[in-house]
């Protein structure tokens, strides 16, 4: 009845109640994704379109960032290694750092900023301009068309972008090593492949899948639940980035513990 919801006394305090309600909403949103992803109809065309937007359109930024990361990290590592006369280990050090942590993390953080915010803002503006309602009243499933497609696209494309970033960062590193230590391309990459294990690559790919899923689902959730007009759209985009980044760091930490445990077996 009228006013019932607001008359109800908060269980602990309004803020804490709101926090737990938000968590429950987010959980239901994720649950709905897993329920809808396997059910027809499938929006293949839209998934491919989103993969193109998320993957191909992110390439320039990812390329530049990866390349700079490779050069900067090599430059920063050289003085420490040269103290021990171990600059010949630079390719090994860089490859391990890039494949295990820096590639996935840098790519995911950039994607959270670029892709997560754009998903949050796009779906948010569709929400406040009633485009999502329009889809719903025309007997179509906006969740499937907007959310499932975007989350699948980020989940598929982030691992590919991560591998690409790894490659570009290693090229940047090679150019730096080549200019300073006169190491050839084949020598550099032989050392890279000797240092990197299958576990490194698989853990990097699996972690990237999780990062991609996180970026997609958080962006969609924030956009889908935005309100209060243009201000709400801005807030949705902003919180999509902040929450994605926060979760990515937590996931990175957890993944590190799991991989270290496997390595120790």
């Amino acid at each position, binding site marked *: *009845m*009228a*006013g019932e*919801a*607001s008359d109800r006394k908060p269980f602990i305090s309004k803020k804490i109640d709101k926090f737990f309600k938000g968590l429950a909403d987010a959980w239901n949103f994720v649950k709905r994704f897993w329920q809808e992803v396997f059910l027809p*109809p499938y929006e293949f065309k839209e998934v491919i379109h989103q993969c193109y937007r998320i993957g191909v359109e992110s390439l320039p930024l990812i390329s530049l960032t990866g390349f700079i990361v490779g050069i900067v990290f090599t430059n920063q590592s050289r003085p420490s290694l040269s103290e021990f006369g171990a600059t010949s280990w630079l390719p090994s050090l860089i490859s391990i750092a890039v494949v295990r942590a820096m590639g996935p993390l840098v790519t995911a953080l950039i994607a959270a900023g670029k892709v997560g915010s754009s998903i949050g803002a*796009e779906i948010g*503006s*569709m929400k406040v*301009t*009633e*485009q999502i*309602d*329009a*889809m*719903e*009243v*025309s*007997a*179509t499933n906006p969740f499937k068309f907007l959310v499932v497609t975007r989350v699948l696209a980020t989940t598929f494309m982030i691992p590919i972008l991560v591998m690409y970033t790894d490659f570009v960062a290693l090229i940047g590193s090679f150019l730096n090593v080549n200019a300073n230590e006169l190491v050839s391309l084949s020598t550099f990459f032989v050392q890279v492949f000797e240092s990197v294990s299958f576990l490194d690559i698989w853990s990097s790919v699996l972690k990237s899948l999780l990062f991609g899923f996180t970026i997609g689902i958080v962006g969609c959730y924030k956009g889908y639940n935005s309100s209060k007009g243009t201000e709400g759209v801005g807030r949705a985009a902003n919180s999509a980035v902040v929450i994605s980044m926060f979760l990515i760091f937590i996931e990175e930490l957890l993944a590190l513990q799991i991989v270290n445990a496997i390595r120790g077996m």
Partner: protein
Amino acid sequence: MSERVVHIRNLHKSFGDLDVLKGVDLDLFREENVVVLGRSGTGKSVLIKIMVGLLRQDEGTMEVLGKEVSTLSKRDLNAFRLKIGFSFQNSALYDSMTVRENMEFPLVRNIKNLTKKEITYRIEELLDAVGLPQTINQMPSELSGGQKKRIGVARTLILNPEIMLYDEPTAGLDPITCVEINNLINEVRERYKTTSIVITHDLTCAKMTGDRMAVLLDGQFRAEGTFDEVFPRATDQRIKSFYDYNFTET
């Protein structure tokens, strides 16, 4: 008397402490155009959103085409929605799609096995009907407000609805475009034999399109009848001022 298609009784809806609808009753008959009038924030749009299942009432019945909307399963609700067309206040065209894609979107997802030729024919037919065949490959951002409204109506008509719901069809438009939209609403009814509810606070729109007016005040319908029965001789000061503001000033 023609068949009753909408039957609303004692409908209540509130948002937190705000009671918006406080016992609304309304009947709507086939091929009738009913105009729901009221000031902003009186719950006019809430009423038609409950009608298509976008919102759920707190109390009361909302029977549309013989079905209680709030009790429909997700699957039945989708089948039911095919019979209802909803024209949104801001047109709600999908920004990232062309006019053709906007119209294709509900069509290909609800009617299977259509050939490309059939889809194009249906889209062109409806764009002709709303007088905008040349916009087929344009993006919504390239259209004027009036054009967007027309395309919004065309997109709604693509599924051959039995009932059309117009949410503030003339809001934000210049007077000439308003008249064009009002004419379009009448043309749609004649051509496609639809039953309509027009939500508005524009009395010119109400007069041009409505067979019957229903004035929503304080969460209930306070007056019902033809335009001449409800307005010129209104005794309720709020309804009278509504009329005076719209007509006497101009």
